[in-house]
């Protein structure tokens, strides 16, 4: 039993060695605004996606209701639908571009 306990203890020590190695302080390579840039990047695309989702959801719903009311005009409605979707999507893309620009400044 003592041999088994000894083996367990030694294995645990070897297993937990990396913790001791990483106990040294990390080199501070980041400037003071890093978390700001990261938070900004995440919020940029997040909020842009939120607005875009709401807008496109409304567009899709209204287009579906319109086609249900008047299936004959579905062609004209489809054109406006696609145009509306792509223009709303472009706002979300602008948010993504800001996210890219901020993410490039991290570190």
């Amino acid at each position: 039993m003592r041999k088994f306990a000894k083996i367990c203890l030694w294995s645990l020590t070897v297993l937990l060695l990396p913790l001791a190695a990483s106990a040294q302080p990390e080199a501070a390579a980041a400037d003071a605004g890093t978390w700001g840039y990261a938070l900004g990047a995440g919020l940029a695309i997040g909020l842009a996606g939120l607005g875009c989702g709401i807008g496109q959801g409304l567009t899709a719903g209204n287009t579906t209701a319109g086609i249900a009311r008047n299936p004959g005009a579905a062609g004209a409605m489809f054109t406006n639908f696609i145009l509306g979707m792509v223009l709303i999507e472009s706002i979300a893309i602008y948010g993504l571009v800001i996210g890219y620009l901020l993410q490039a400044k991290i570190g």
Partner: protein
Amino acid sequence: MNVFESLEHATGVPWVLWSASFVAAVVLAAALTVRARLAAPDGGLVPDAGVSVRNVIEMLGEMLVGLAEQNMGPRWRTYFPFVASIFLYILIANLIGLVPGMGGATRNPNVTWAWATLSFVVHQYVGIREHGFGYLLHFMGPSLFDVKIGGRTFHVRLLAPIYAVIELISHVSRVFTLAVRLLANMSADAIVVGVWIALVPAVVPALFMGLGVLVAFLQAYVFAMLSMIYIGLALEEAH
């Protein structure tokens, strides 16, 4: 990493130029094919059987003609070649960029800014040629009331200072939005496919490539449609 970059290694010409020239060559080849078919003895009345280059381009052409008539009014024929070139070039550039191993021309800001600048210059020139100095009236907003002085009617545009700023900003932002919309849509799809290949290399990247095909068509369509709308707006009378 892609075919055009190895060409860049060999010759020192940037890969975007190779990619853009390749797309132009494909568009030219398609155009020459259609023209050869139209030179047939019956004038090309009979469509080919099945799916051929000519049939696809005829379908796209029909759609573009419908849009042009709707947006540019009775004089759409003058400006149709420009808008159709925009559509065909951007469509083929987007689709070629989807093929793994070939660098997308529209993923590079140079190409998209070039097309956006061209579109902007063309529709401003159309407005100036159509209205002369009266084109400035477009920037001055609606006329609130008319004043009759000595037999001529003047439209008084009181909101001109406010409207001039708004219209100027919106006109300048047209270049920006056209370029950035196309560029960001195509690079975003490439990056998403890349990320998914790193995460789940099995089936999911293919789904996003399918989405990329749809986005390629939509972005070419929207670029061409917006150019047509801007030309139509420049052609019509001020408020």
